[in-house]
């Protein structure tokens, strides 16, 4: 068995998928934590928003104080603090061999789907409406994308999602061809390029 086949096999395994899920959820948790602390500091200091913050390349404190950053009336990052630990627990259990029921996995898929939608909505809002970007928010967008890819992979592999038969078999073909890997890498690279083109050197200045 050559290296590619071995790699392909490994990519379909529980160990790999749950490990990816664990790392992505962990990264997201760290980022959410930093953003939550920032939000509290910002709330405590009414002057914090009265300037152009260099480290966040924010267009001038706009992200943290925008309504988009507090969609539900509290900082969005708090949602991450609630959800990510649950996903980490699921990943650890899965990694160590727990079999989840189909219903449970559908629930997990639903949660990450909502997280993904929310993360990209925020990404678009901050890039094109607020016109600002913060590295930690970007980290959340990234890891949520990876998380979604891993869980979807798992659920397609196990045929958990009650998809129409044609779609299910098409998706399985994608997985067999590792097409999902190409799409994910392409997508992430495209996002990095987009961010660099738009914000360039300012991001790390």
């Amino acid at each position: 068995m050559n290296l590619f086949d071995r790699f392909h096999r490994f990519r379909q395994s529980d160990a790999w998928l749950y490990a990816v899920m664990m790392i992505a959820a962990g990264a997201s948790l760290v980022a959410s934590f930093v953003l939550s602390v920032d939000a509290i500091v910002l709330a405590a200091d009414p002057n914090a928003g009265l300037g152009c913050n260099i480290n966040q390349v924010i267009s001038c404190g706009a992200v943290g104080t925008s309504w988009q950053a507090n969609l539900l009336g509290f900082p969005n990052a708090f949602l991450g603090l609630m959800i990510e630990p649950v996903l980490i627990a699921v990943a650890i259990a899965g990694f160590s061999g727990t079999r989840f029921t189909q219903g449970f996995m559908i629930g997990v898929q639903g949660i990450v789907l909502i997280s993904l939608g929310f993360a990209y909505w925020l990404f678009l809002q901050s890039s094109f409406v607020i016109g600002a970007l913060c590295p930690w928010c970007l980290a959340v967008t990234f890891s949520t994308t990876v998380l979604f890819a891993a869980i979807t992979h798992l659920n397609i592999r196990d045929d958990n999602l009650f998809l129409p038969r044609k779609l299910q078999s098409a998706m399985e073909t994608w997985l067999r061809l590792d097409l999902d890997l190409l799409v994910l890498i392409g997508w992430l690279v495209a996002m990095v390029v987009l961010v660099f083109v738009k914000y360039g050197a300012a991001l790390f200045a």
Partner: protein
Amino acid sequence: MSNKKPSGQQPDPASRRQQLRLEQERAAKEAKVRRIISFAALGVLGLAVIGGIVWAVMSMGALTANKPTAAGSVNATYTVVAGDPKAPVVVDIYQDYMCPYCGEFDRVNAADLEALATAGQAQIRLHPMNFLDGASQGTKYSTRAANALVTVAKAEPDKMLAFNTALYTDQPAENTTGLSDAQIAERAKAVGVSDATIATFTQLSNADFVNNTTKAAFADGIESTPTILINGTAFNSKAIYTAGALRQAVEAAAKG
């Protein structure tokens, strides 16, 4: 894949063999496609890494290419200075022309700053930065405006503060294209800068100076704009928007 054959329950060894062979062929074909896709994924990743390295090397090159230049009223630490260099108080102003709060600060304090400089009570050191270049839809307004200011400071230092304020009058909003080169020239002309000086704005010959101002500010730990230092100590970030507060603080500092 179903093994049922239309020809009945009895498995026909010949067709079974054929089916197995077909399946093997399909698997081999898939393995081939998979390999191509894996290579493509690797390629995309590799290109991205190479692109990142090239970008990093290029921006490093730009960093070392910036040679310090110091002349006239221009301080070697990449600031432009107004007022008596022997004045008892030094006021440092870190700013970016795309930063709305810097405009707010100038609108509140411009007259006081001018008076303090003229009276010889304070030396005003402007640090025109360009970290908000990304917020002008690619026109690099922060650099263009700051370059114009440094050019004026070098050629006609007495017009510097007035031009600084002119740039903040009707300040363009963030994430717009900022003022055009022609508009910057117009504002310079309105405060009495000579045509000869204005003509050199578009050469951007002080863009490196502005880059260095920005780097020096980062190195000094400046975290946001506007940051105001009085004799090196940060001035209350809220009071800077209160009329007269800065002036009082400077006068208090002058008394020692």
